């Protein structure tokens, strides 16, 4: 991999370890080359991983937030998918580099007295930090971990550690299980967190119909994201108000490009978190890397956080 890694390219992550977690799941440990802190995250967060091929994939962070210089993602190899997971599995070796955006969080762990976690397959990776947090806070929790084939299911050691709390169920061996029965009637202040494939999530509202509506929180792990390819080609930034046009090399955030051209945009966190540098975008397609906008807001393509974000199109027109 030839990606340059310098201070202004702080979105570069090096693979420091690969850990096989099942026959089809590999965990990647990612750090900055200089081991500087990475942006903070909370359980439920994911990062956008930009692969060497330019493909973007979203992976839940499954590591420990008390290790601030390190992210972990667990990747299930999917030979029938869009090729992202296969690229990670077959090509990414320790020492190789990827870039990332975020972390973003659409699946936050809300406060409750007890939790019911339901994982389908690799959906377990989003729930691991939640389980760790429930433990840390001394809260009651139960996990139902569903899959087809035991050999493919990662992190089953949870069951050995917490035999009273964890139910692992592989449909290949034991057929279907009733989620409603497993849930039973949990204590009043319970929240249900589920992550897995569409088929699992679709069944949940019905399985939870006896519980208050606000109880169930879900996240889909399949990458339904458009197969956008991030370009590392040079692009052009037009500043509408002054009429200036600035050439941007690929792989560089808009703020860095503008600063080099003598145009300062006031920033604060430089991580796409605080929102200080927001600018309106008048034309062009944005390569969003911030932690602020949700998917719908991103899709409107009308504003960006130039401290981390850049361009997908050849030209970006900013209201500056």
């Amino acid at each position, binding site marked *: 991999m030839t990606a340059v890694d310098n201070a202004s390219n702080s979105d570069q992550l090096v693979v420091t370890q690969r850990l096989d977690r099942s026959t089809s799941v590999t965990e990647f440990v990612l750090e900055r080359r200089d081991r500087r802190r990475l942006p903070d995250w909370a359980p439920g967060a994911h990062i956008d991983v930009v692969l060497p091929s330019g493909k973007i994939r979203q992976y839940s962070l499954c590591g420990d937030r008390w290790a601030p210089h390190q992210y972990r993602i667990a990747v299930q190899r999917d030979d029938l998918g869009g090729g992202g997971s296969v690229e990670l599995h077959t090509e990414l070796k320790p020492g190789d580099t990827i870039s990332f955006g975020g972390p973003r969080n659409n699946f936050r762990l809300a406060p409750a007295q007890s939790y019911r976690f339901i994982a389908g397959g690799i959906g377990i990776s989003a729930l691991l930090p939640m389980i760790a947090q429930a433990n840390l806070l001394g809260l009651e929790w139960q996990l139902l971990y569903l899959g087809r084939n035991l050999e493919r299911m990662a992190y089953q050691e949870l069951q050995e550690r917490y035999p009273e709390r964890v139910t692992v169920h592989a449909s290949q061996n034991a057929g279907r299980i009733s989620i409603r029965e497993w849930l039973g009637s949990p204590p009043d202040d319970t929240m249900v967190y589920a992550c897995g494939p569409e088929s699992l999530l679709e069944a949940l509202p019905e399985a939870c119909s006896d519980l208050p509506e606000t109880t169930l929180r879900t996240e889909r792990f399949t990458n339904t994201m458009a197969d956008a390819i991030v370009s590392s080609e040079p692009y052009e930034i037009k500043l509408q108000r002054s009429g200036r046009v600035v050439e941007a090399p690929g792989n560089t955030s808009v703020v860095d490009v503008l600063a080099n051209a003598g145009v300062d945009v006031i920033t604060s966190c430089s991580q796409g978190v605080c929102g200080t540098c*927001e600018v309106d975008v008048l034309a062009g397609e944005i390569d969003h890397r911030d932690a602020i906008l949700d998917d719908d807001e991103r899709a409107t393509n009308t504003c960006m956080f130039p401290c981390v974000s850049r361009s997908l199109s050849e030209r970006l027109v900013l209201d500056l």
Partner: protein
Amino acid sequence: MTTNAVSKCPFTGAPDLAPASHEQQVDVPVLLEDPFEESNLADPHPMHKRLRDADADVVYLPAYDIYAVARYEAVLDTLENWQDYSSAAGVGLSNFNKEEPWRTPSLLLEADPPKHDAPRATLEKILGARQLRRFQTDWTNTAHRLVDGLLTNAQHQTARAIELDAVTEISEVYPLSVFPDAVGLQQGGLDNLLPYGNFAFNAFGPRNRLVTDELDTIGPVMEWVGQQCPRDALNPDSFGGDIWRAADQRNITEEQAPLIVRSLLTAGVDTTVYGISAVLYHLASNPEQYARLREQPQLVRRVFEEALRLESPVQTFFRTTTRKVQIGDTTLPENQKILMFLGAANRDPRRWDNADDFDLDRDPSGHLAFGSGAHQCVGQHVARLEASCVLDALIERVEGIEFAAPPVRKINNTLLGWHSLPLRFIPA
């Protein structure tokens, strides 16, 4: 001012230094400074320089048995490293692991992840820049009415100019005419807000006169603040209403909601009052930069950030070590208070050229007046919107600003600002 002996001696007095570290006994500069002495509170910059210029990134202040950081990089690292430096033991001198807090601790400022997560995510959403756009027109109009009123009704009017105290006539007036409404307060009693904030920010310091003088009067003020936080006290179409709706959606609990409303009332008033005074002070001190701002109104945001950098209305916050931590050659023991000088970091010549100058050609990005990391000011967009509304109105109607008399400092254990700013406005 006392001259301070800056002695570099082997520091052995730290409680809790585990025996294992005896062999690698380290040196830490010991400074006999009292950051909360009133002369330092009124004019902290000479002391800041001594703290930064000590021989290490961290120093020890025996006056309070605390460590302190004042250089930019060290302050930034401490702010961002919530894993090693806790807020839950209080962000003032008092260590909540050992002492009873004066009020129920804040769910934001005085909390660590994971408990900090849900209140923080909720407020970030509610106070996000895009959410604030709905106030733009109203807050702009309010600022124009204020400035127009000052120009037409001024007490001291000469042929060309008017004179006023910018603190009592602008900085304290404007935030109080927009912010309580936005929070959803609707029962009057707003004159409690400034004393409450003033007390809260004093309470982060030692129990000196600034705290003890207020103890007799603060009770009813605290009670009033508590009464503003329940759902039925608040206008539903407001930040407060948004907070309670987050409880309905179970993103936070019903017990958390009123305390999160309280955070806005503690942190959202005095800070902006001081922030607006800071920018007016620096504009009055630099008339040529005010003239430039009038020619290039798009500099309004930079003007405010540069004033915040120089003034740092919130000067200091503490953290408490969660374990033994290493800063350079120094090992801090566990459960040890460390004081972060935001104001010193914002004028550190290691980070800023001509650090003491108010300079509109500089990029103030990265200043630490709003903190950094997990606790970085969640109200920063509110502060910016208020300040830019005031400045926009001012540059439209006022051609020049100058001092009519020397300004007078206000003394607070945490905040740096002005008691009075006698200014002369020359109408445009």
